């Protein structure tokens, strides 16, 4: 079965540094998402992306965050200046094109565990 792949699986960085988390969504999917899960808390929506632009973003997704689909296959999340509270598991997800219920079913990657020291 096709998979969403994320790299790296673990990322350790110093506070104030920039990080880029990478994702390769399933090839025929057109909707892309980033979610995060702080240890012991709920999975939270960050941002959705379609047709090369942000469709929706949460309050968490402030000016320090950006997303990009640089080459038609990768989907990246950049955090410009990391803070301690950015430490979390970051999940990429994608969903199918088209109308109807299938678009709601998200396929998640295995996540990148980001640790900010």
């Amino acid at each position, binding site marked *: 079965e096709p998979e969403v792949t994320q790299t790296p699986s673990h990322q350790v960085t110093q506070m104030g540094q920039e990080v880029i988390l990478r994702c390769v969504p399933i090839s025929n999917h057109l909707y892309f998402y980033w979610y995060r899960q702080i240890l012991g808390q709920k*999975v939270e929506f960050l941002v*959705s992306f379609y047709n090369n632009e942000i*469709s929706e973003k*949460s309050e968490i997704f402030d000016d320090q965050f950006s997303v990009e689909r640089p080459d038609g296959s990768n989907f990246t999340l950049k955090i410009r200046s990391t803070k301690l509270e950015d430490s979390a598991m970051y999940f990429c997800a994608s969903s199918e094109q088209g109308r109807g219920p299938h678009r709601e079913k998200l396929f998640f990657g295995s*996540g990148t565990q980001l640790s900010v020291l």
Partner: protein
Amino acid sequence: EDKVVQSPLSLVVHEGDTVTLNCSYEVTNFRSLLWYKQEKKAPTFLFMLTSSGIEKKSGRLSSILDKKELFSILNITATQTGDSAIYLCAVVPTTSGTYKYIFGTGTRLKVLA
């Protein structure tokens, strides 16, 4: 504020037991409710429910939605150690342009041999 609440938070059972996991929600303009299983990292899809009273079934797992009382249950019969995981409930409101999920905290299930 949209909210999804799951119960219990954790559960320990023995192989062969039947478990019922609960998910209640308060969202504006409900569209669908989804169940995911999270074993190690990536949540994997189990069910999507949109209509009240229609049971979805896959092997030993089944789920049903009650849109009047705003809840869903996930049943697992004849549990096995491989069912040990976190079970996540997520709701999609129609106000979301691109199907943003609102997750519950999850129920951590441990099945003992």
